[in-house]
């Protein structure tokens, strides 16, 4: 009577279960809340744990790529919210959640509150870029609001001293974690504002969980920062952490050390740029001088030209005149074979100039001789 009954193999049955579970909308990409137990991190990097509550437990697998993207791995006893999909593992016949994301329980609520406050303050204009105060380039006094103990204040002091040794650092200690933190930070900021001559304020805290940094999402703190007359640099947590204080601060630095770097210039850079300016000034002065040297050389050339030209012209005229004078030169006549006879200083041109017994001087090309007039006879 049962011969007609359909008999499944184990595999067939498991396949059916697998199909049903893995195609159920409620079991895919869904959030489940519970407490962690049996936490194992395999050498492959995959993480296995059990999520349980008072009534049930479910196996969870977090593959390596997801496990690596999680900031802090959960530990047994943690109350978690897990997002994942239910799958079936046929070889063992069990089902498990393949985890895609995790968060600590309540974090979802916190994040929601954070987003609400952020959008409200943004609409109020507390994050307005136009309201942000510029940081003084060369501060004399820097206020630091942070925990008086721990690495943060040490890192800030070290960084500031290294870059800009002569700046005064005023620490206004605050509790930066827990219920009292926001009020403590507000008080510390107010104390700094009461001090005269404050140029920049650094608000800093080291890295931590979202809960650790929660005090920086306080609304009163945000408003205190917004009305703070001194520019505020926030350096809270790590690169990836954003708090309301970061949005409302005049400048956000990714870490406390980065905040210190923003607060003061690097004196080495200043020195370098001063040196550069010196070189620039020298170069432009040298250019100025070189240009004028050329100018003067040019003047000298033109001046000499201007004085030499008429000189050359005069010399030319002189040459012409002296050539014409040369034509009258007696020596030229003598060289052509003539002689010239002088009586006293006058050349003889007429018989009337001499009489018998006069002494006359005759010049020839190669010398002169003296003669005595023996007779004078005029032409008829």
């Amino acid at each position, binding site marked *: 009577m049962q011969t007609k009954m359909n008999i499944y193999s184990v595999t067939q049955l498991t396949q059916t279960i697998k199909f049903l579970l893995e195609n159920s909308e409620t079991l895919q990409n869904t959030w489940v809340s519970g407490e962690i137990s049996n936490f194992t991190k395999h050498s492959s990097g995959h993480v296995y744990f059990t999520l349980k509550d008072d009534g049930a437990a479910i196996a969870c697998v977090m593959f390596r790529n997801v496990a690596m993207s999680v900031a802090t791995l959960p530990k047994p006893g943690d109350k978690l919210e897990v997002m994942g999909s239910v799958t079936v593992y046929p070889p063992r016949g069990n089902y498990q959640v393949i985890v895609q994301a995790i968060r600590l329980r309540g974090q979802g609520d916190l994040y929601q509150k954070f987003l609400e406050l952020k959008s409200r303050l943004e609409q109020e204009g507390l994050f307005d870029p136009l309201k942000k105060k510029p940081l003084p380039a060369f501060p004399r006094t820097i206020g630091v609001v942070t925990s008086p103990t721990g690495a943060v204040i040490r890192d800030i002091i070290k960084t500031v001293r290294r870059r800009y040794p002569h700046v005064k650092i005023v620490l206004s200690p605050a509790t930066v974690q827990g219920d009292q933190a926001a009020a403590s930070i507000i008080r510390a900021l107010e104390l700094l504002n009461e001090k005269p001559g404050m140029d920049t304020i650094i608000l800093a805290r080291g890295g931590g969980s979202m809960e650790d940094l929660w005090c920086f999402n306080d609304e009163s703190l945000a408003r205190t920062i917004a009305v703070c007359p001194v520019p505020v640099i926030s350096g809270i947590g790590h690169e990836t952490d954003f708090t309301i204080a970061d949005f409302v601060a005049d400048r956000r630095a990714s870490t406390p050390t980065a905040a210190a770097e923003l607060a003061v210039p690097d004196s080495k850079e200043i020195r370098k740029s001063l040196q550069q300016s010196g070189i620039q000034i020298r170069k432009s002065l040298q250019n100025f001088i070189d240009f004028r040297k050329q100018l003067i050389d040019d003047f*000298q050339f033109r*001046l000499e030209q201007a004085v030499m030209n008429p000189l050359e012209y005069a010399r030319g005229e002189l040459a012409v005149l002296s050539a014409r004078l040369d034509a009258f030169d007696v020596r030229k006549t003598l060289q052509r074979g003539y002689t010239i006879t002088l009586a006293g200083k006058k050349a003889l041109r007429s018989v009337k100039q001499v009489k018998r017994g006069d002494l006359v001087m005759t010049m020839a090309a190669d010398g002169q001789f003296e003669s005595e007039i023996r007779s004078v006879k005029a032409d008829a």
Partner: protein
Amino acid sequence: MPETKKFSLETHLKRLRKIVEEMQSGKPDFDENIKLFQEGSVLIQEAKIFLDESEMLIRKLTAAGEESYAGELDEE
């Protein structure tokens, strides 16, 4: 030059420009030309000396500046 008017390179250059223009115009007679030339030569000498001295001063100052930079950097 405290005994005479205060030296000014630009005034010298201005005067030189004028002298050269005047001489090149051909208007002055020969004697005037020589006088202008003498005046111009003096101006040129003075300007050259001034520029040489300025250059030396700059060299001296830059050398001093570079030394002080080097000194401060050495401390670190």
